[in-house]
């Protein structure tokens, strides 16, 4: 993710240039001459978005000394890809140099004759937390499996649907063997990931061992004493934290300004041209150390926990998020959230409100203007219309957005993967085969 301030006054020109990359509002032409996203085989999603924060005035509610009226207007270039991000960046610098130079020429400190890759690297911002719907699933796999599904439904349509399931499966396997499509074997889990998983297991085991150590090694009385001391140590900072939290939660100003008509129009114009939409939100954190430290710790925990708890198919109960990232900007004065999700924005918000309001409150509750929370987890996003107003007001229309597999939702992608697995498995029960056939 490259983030660079735009030369003051050149924002409109830059926007006009970016819009030439689109085939329809907000959706990039995959082979546009500036940055032909479609030729980058490991790229799932990408976007260019001008981070023009219309909510800076909200800070006034916290007093004059907290204002941030000179906040830069950034250009952000985000991509979600297979493999290391730096490799893709190098590939971009290599194969789309001319277009990227044209675009970044609108940014401060860009040297048209300098090293593009170095410049982009120096402006790269690392997200504090990221979420990937299905770790390890590549663009190639998604595309191949979609083609496979299509081929299989054609083959199946030519067969009698009442035939014995086992015979149908055999016929289908033969058809794919004879007529294709060819599938690239799934790549093994990278070694670094296996190490990482191992480290998690070891860390968890160590934590449990340490927690049980007093009981295992000491007499009951001593063990209780150790636990007691430990609790006091834990309870003191927790109490201090709660006092501060409640003070902020009860006294911080809540800003309920509804989004303007023009803003909603700009957002709406870009939405629902595909089954997937992009979401980019920008906002300031409440002034003071408390909100920044709380958010820093929470985002760190999110980054640590999501790949372990939610590696495949869903983030808590949400099954519609392809990728998401939480990013600090301007020395933690502001934050950015970016995601790609299936369905309409209203449905996305309803899912948030109804299924994971606690998660939103945790990760965004320290933002300026966020609906009032109670004890970090409650309230906030549960205030349905207030929350929807806040999130729409902070949302930014992305000038350019690219998706590598238009028309496919996460449910489609997961189904296609199951279909492929069913094709490749050596044995299946009768019930499994029926289930498999019903998904084709």
């Amino acid at each position, binding site marked *: 993710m490259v983030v660079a301030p735009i030369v003051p006054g050149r924002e409109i020109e830059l926007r006009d240039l970016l819009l030439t990359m689109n085939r329809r509002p907000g959706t990039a032409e995959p082979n546009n001459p500036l940055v032909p996203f479609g030729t980058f085989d490991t790229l799932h999603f990408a976007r260019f978005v001008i981070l023009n924060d219309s909510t800076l005035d909200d800070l006034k509610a916290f007093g004059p000394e907290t204002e941030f009226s000179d906040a830069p207007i950034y250009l952000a270039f985000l991509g979600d890809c297979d493999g290391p991000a730096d490799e893709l960046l190098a590939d971009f610098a290599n194969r789309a140099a001319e277009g990227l130079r044209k675009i970044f020429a609108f940014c401060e400190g860009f040297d048209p004759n300098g090293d593009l890759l170095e410049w982009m690297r120096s402006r790269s911002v690392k997200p504090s937390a990221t979420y990937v719907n299905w770790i390890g699933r590549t663009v190639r796999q998604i595309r191949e499996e979609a083609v496979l599904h299509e081929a299989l439904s054609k083959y199946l349509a030519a067969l009698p649907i009442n035939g014995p399931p086992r015979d149908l499966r055999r016929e289908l396997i033969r058809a794919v063997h004879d007529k294709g499509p060819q599938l690239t074997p799934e790549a093994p889990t990278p070694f670094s990931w296996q190490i990482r998983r191992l480290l998690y297991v070891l860390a968890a085991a160590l934590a449990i061992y340490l927690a049980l150590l007093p009981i295992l090694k000491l007499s009951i009385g001593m063990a209780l004493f150790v636990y007691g001391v430990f609790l006091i140590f834990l309870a003191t900072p927790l109490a201090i934290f709660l006092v501060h939290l409640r003070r902020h939660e009860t006294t911080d100003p809540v800003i309920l300004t509804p989004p303007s008509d023009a803003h909603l129009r700009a957002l709406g114009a870009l939405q629902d041209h595909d089954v997937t939409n992009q979401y980019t939100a920008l906002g300031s954190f409440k002034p003071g150390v408390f909100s920044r430290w709380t958010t820093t710790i929470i985002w760190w925990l999110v980054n640590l926990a999501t790949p372990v*708890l939610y590696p495949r198919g869903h983030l808590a109960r949400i099954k519609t998020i392809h990728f998401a990232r939480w990013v600090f900007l301007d020395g933690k004065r502001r934050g950015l959230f970016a995601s790609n999700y299936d369905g309409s924005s209203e449905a996305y918000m309803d899912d948030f409100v109804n299924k994971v309001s606690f998660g939103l409150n945790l990760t965004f509750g320290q933002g300026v203007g966020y609906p009032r929370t109670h004890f970090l987890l409650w309230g906030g996003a549960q205030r349905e219309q207030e929350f929807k107003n806040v999130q729409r007001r902070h949302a930014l229309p992305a000038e350019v957005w690219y998706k590598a597999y238009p028309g496919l939702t996460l449910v*489609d992608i997961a189904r296609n993967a199951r279909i492929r697995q069913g094709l490749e498995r050596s044995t299946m029960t009768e019930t499994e085969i029926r289930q498999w056939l019903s998904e*084709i």
Partner: protein
Amino acid sequence: MVETVTEYEDIQGLLYAGYGSLEEASFLLLRVTNAAEAKAWFAGLVEEPGAEKLSYHVTHAGHLDSHQEQVLQLAFTARGLRNLGLLEDVLGSFSREFYLGIAGAEAEVEGRSRRLGDIGNNAPSNWEWGTPTEMPDILVMLYAEAGGLAAFQQMVTADLALGFEIIRILATAKAAEPGETRREPFGFVDGISQPQIDWDGTREPGTSDDLDYGNLIAAGEFLLGYQNEYGLYTQRPLLEPSQDPENILAPAAESPGQRDLGRNGTYLVLRQLEQDVSGFWNFVSEKSPEDNGTSLAQAMLGRNLTTGDPLITASRAEIRGVGPDAGDIRQNGFTYESDPEGLTCPFGAHIRRANPRTADMPGGRQGVISFLLRALGLKQDGPRDDLISSSRFHRLIRRGRPYGVVIDHRESVVHGESPGITSGIYFIALNANISRQFEFVQNAWIVNAKFNGMDGETDPLLGNRVPFPAENPTDAFCLPQPSGPNRRIAGLPQFITVRGAAYFFLPSLRAIRFIARQNGKG
């Protein structure tokens, strides 16, 4: 504590009843030509002291204790309220969907038409009314007993002439005779499933009770000014006392210093849906010739053609807000949990899309540990689990009426015999939050080609069949089979076409009085 609704004399009766016993109805779309005369007529309709006496009035829910021979209901578009002199900042505090309208340049730019499936043949550019040039100000709904409508309508239209022009009269088909089953033009039994409004505030929304599907829904979902399913008050125009100097409006429940223009009112969605009756029956009987298409038609709807009973057998478990009437229990005492494979009622059936009957979390009540694991998404049952959001936030009261010819014997239209008259339904939905209720149901459930994990199919009856996105077809209908592969029917033609639509505000009687007293331009 949830507030009990008591002000029945302030609520238009349509929220309370569909007037099934009044067999005739017509809906007049009006434009204001003389605002002063128009307001004088409204004042008469709500029997203001000093107003000219009319021989009819706006029927409120309090009237429904006794039989009404004729009924008049009144609703306004944003354009209408503006033309009657409501201030722009008051108008702007209605919901945005109402303020902008269902169609028009802004709605298209913003993607509203796209989200509602109003594209292709359904596009507003093809509508007969509801486009900016054919946008009514006022909707007057007239209901009467058999034989009584003509005279009633004549009397009303004569009085209207001073203040309004009639831009369209939407005449409905005669409803079923008493004792007969109400049907829509395809021949299906109509108006079976409705949410039950919690008038008495007996239910606290958001408790563990909502881990089971319920049909008793907070009054605030259908009536502005009361708590909704979130326990909150839906946004609506709240005025300062200075804006209501005559003290006509009631105080806002959550902010007693302000006056509530919305209280006891709601939004009304009206859509004229033309039905290709012979096209429908020809298609299904061609695909399922063994029974002239009956079984396929039933699978598309999800209910029995003759009786209206669901294809799914009613469960024994009690559902809050269904019954005690035995017919209601037979027709609505079910969820889809008993049919996880879609073998009895296909996943794409209309009734599954219109109301998926889901609770707050799949799996119901299973103890605290299981609740926590499921709430955190750490326990899921298969790929279809938890794809559909909780139904209680997305319910509609439907008050539609058919028009044209409602067939009794579909055999007469099968095999190409067109009745020679256009038929359809005036779809009418009441809801307090258009975007979360009507628009969500239409977008996320009815026209969504990816609903409930499916691919390439939209509502078998309502779908517009326009490929989306790009070339991806949306014209299939799948019937899951116990033997394995789905029976997939591709190439469904469009059976239902939108001919006109608008969002209205169905005000309380107080609000009508208030509107009648506006002295803005006009």
